[in-house]
């Protein structure tokens, strides 16, 4: 709508109201998230201060000598700006150059990991060292003006061993994404290319399964999982495992819970790939599997990545299944935060819980930044086709 016709042009009042509403919505959408991020880097007294200004500036945090000077803020923002710019302009080129075309996904993973590592080293290792020296030289410009403390993050990740929960979350989500995509892609392709009644009924059954509350299913698993060692003994002998508390059992459960959504979504993506493509391969003498492997697989990645994102979200955000089926030592991050509720007695504990919450949100934030387009296309694909 670059050239808006005269009749469609809106009066100023309407445009203003629309812009104001949009600004209000953006504030509303971002505020709680930004606010907990601000709270997490303040001393407990500042974090729960009743004046918003105190929370932002953090006088109590400053009084303990922890804070950022004007120079810190300016230099930090400059480094951040260039780091982000570099990631979006130069990084893709480097990845394309150094990774073989067949392993482009792996190349991206390695590229992102290396980038994250270098960024963390520079931003949290090198920069504070340089700035520390500069601040002591500069005098008034080097005085801290904005309170900032990392003590809660240190406490959460160090003393409370949150990294264990992080690793568990990583394992469970990685497992769920890989398995559910492998199984789901095959099924989605099969369903998209078969017009039979059976395929229709499978999709309907999947729709019904999609609506089931997860607690209903967990109520079905629990007795079996707890006693599985005895139930499986006749088959596997003494090797039979107790499924309760096993991360891979949770992976299997979440993959299945996620299957209905995955196959619906992938089916609609595969329907968008013209069937002439695999028919041509079939004419050239490929079997269905060969056609899938050689013709469909190279072009299916956008749809698979999008579906994978949603599988990731389901596994990463889950509270119900993981809290009921995993025991304390291999708990994932989200249920682990509930552990803070129970001992949340002092304000320090509360701010530590806030820091843990921000730690959980940070990867999601990065995810939206990198994959915004895929998420949007995934949301709309389900709606427009489904």
């Amino acid at each position, binding site marked *: 709508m670059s050239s808006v016709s005269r009749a469609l042009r809106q009066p100023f009042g*309407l445009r203003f109201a629309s812009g104001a509403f949009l600004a209000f919505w953006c504030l509303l959408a971002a505020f709680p998230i930004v606010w907990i991020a601000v709270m997490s880097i303040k001393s407990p007294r500042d974090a729960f201060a009743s004046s918003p200004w105190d929370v932002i500036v953090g006088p109590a945090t400053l009084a303990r000598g922890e804070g950022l000077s004007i120079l810190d803020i300016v230099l930090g923002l400059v480094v951040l700006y260039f780091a982000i710019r570099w990631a979006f302009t130069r990084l893709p080129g480097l990845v394309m150059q150094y990774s073989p075309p067949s392993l482009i996904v792996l190349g991206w993973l390695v590229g992102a990991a290396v980038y994250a590592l270098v960024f963390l080293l520079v931003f949290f290792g090198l920069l504070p060292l340089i700035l520390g020296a500069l601040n002591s030289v500069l005098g008034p410009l080097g005085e801290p003006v904005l309170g900032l403390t990392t003590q809660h993050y240190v406490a959460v990740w160090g003393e409370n061993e949150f990294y264990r929960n992080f690793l568990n979350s990583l394992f469970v989500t990685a497992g769920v994404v890989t398995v559910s995509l492998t199984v789901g892609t095959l099924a989605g392709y099969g369903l998209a290319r078969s017009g039979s009644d059976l395929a229709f009924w499978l999709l309907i059954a999947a729709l019904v399964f999609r609506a089931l509350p997860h607690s209903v299913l967990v109520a079905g698993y629990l*007795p079996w999982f707890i006693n599985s060692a005895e139930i499986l003994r006749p088959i596997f002998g003494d090797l039979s495992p107790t499924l309760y508390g096993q991360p891979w059992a949770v992976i299997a459960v979440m993959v299945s819970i996620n299957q209905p959504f995955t196959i619906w979504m992938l089916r609609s993506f595969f329907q968008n790939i013209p069937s002439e493509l695999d028919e041509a391969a079939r004419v050239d003498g490929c079997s269905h599997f060969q056609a899938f492997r050689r013709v469909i697989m190279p072009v299916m990645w956008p749809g698979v990545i999008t579906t994978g994102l949603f599988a990731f979200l389901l596994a990463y955000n889950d509270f119900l299944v993981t809290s009921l089926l995993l025991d304390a030592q291999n708990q994932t991050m989200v249920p682990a935060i509930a552990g803070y509720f129970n001992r949340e007695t002092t304000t320090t504990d509360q701010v530590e819980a806030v820091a843990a919450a921000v730690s959980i949100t940070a990867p999601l934030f990065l995810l939206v930044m990198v994959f915004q387009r895929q998420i949007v296309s995934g949301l709309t694909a389900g709606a427009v086709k489904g």
Partner: protein
Amino acid sequence: MKFKTFAAFVGPSVFMMILFIALPLISVFIQSFQITQPVMQNLEVETCTPGFLTQTCVTELKTVPVIGEDGKTVTTTEWTGLQSYRNVLQMDKVWEAVSAGRLGDILQIDFWKALRFTLMFTLVTLPLVIGVGLLIALTVNNAAKALRGPVIFVSLLPFIITPVIGSLSIYWLFVGDGILTAMMESWSGTNISMFAQAWTIELLMYFYRVWHVAPFAFVIFYAGLQTVNMDTLESAIIDGANRWERLRHVIIPHLMPLIVFIALIHLMDCYRVFDEIIGFRSQAHVISLQWLTVDFLTPDDAGNRAISRAAASAMLTMIGIVFLLIWPLRRTWKDHKGGAH
């Protein structure tokens, strides 16, 4: 595609869905009519304490669980018919309340309390989500092109955030003397505590859910708005339709399939409301159906899980899903029969 190839493609997926969705459903259905308990026995136990001249001995009749040879308690499984359902529904108390004319008392019973909240939550948030989503989509569509990307990015944040964390982040704004409670207190001059009574918690929950789901509705409506037929819109202008009439008669009918889709997804998801209860820590005031089942499944102080009651409450939850899905499923079936897709 031959049946064999089709089966090979969908086989793993179907296998997993049968093993982890269909079979557990059957298992829950059966469990809801059964009860598994430890076998108890009455033992006469003589306990003696040293006393003057003679020991003081007391003989007591104690009920203790039978311990089997492997050192575990022996359990039996009995068919109890509808007993678990009765335990969950507590119809006797309901009739008592009805005959006494105190209908409010029904909402003191866990199941009815949970049902009331779940239904109200679903029905209150549905129009709000659609309305707010549509409003955001219209305003974004109105905004300058350069702004749209950042706005979509910010809007996606509430949608993508972990539900428990999202509700916690709002909880922290209001808890105790949280920043917004303090602000409201300074405006109104009274002491406000948002988490001391049910209705304020419920309001926050409604707000959270709209905040969380509106971006989803927005993204879908926004995509739909890109395909509005400009010719129809322009002819509507020529016919003298004002802005509101254009919205009402051109844009909304165009978006209708999307509205139905969002409503359906929202009904399914809202009916499963659970994470808010954890995030807002509202167990004492507001509970949902799914939370009730989870609560039965969580071990109590003695380490026992009320599996059969959980199964009964799960089956009762399922009945609601059936009602929810009848209409869309009939529609899909008609579409399939008609061959229109």
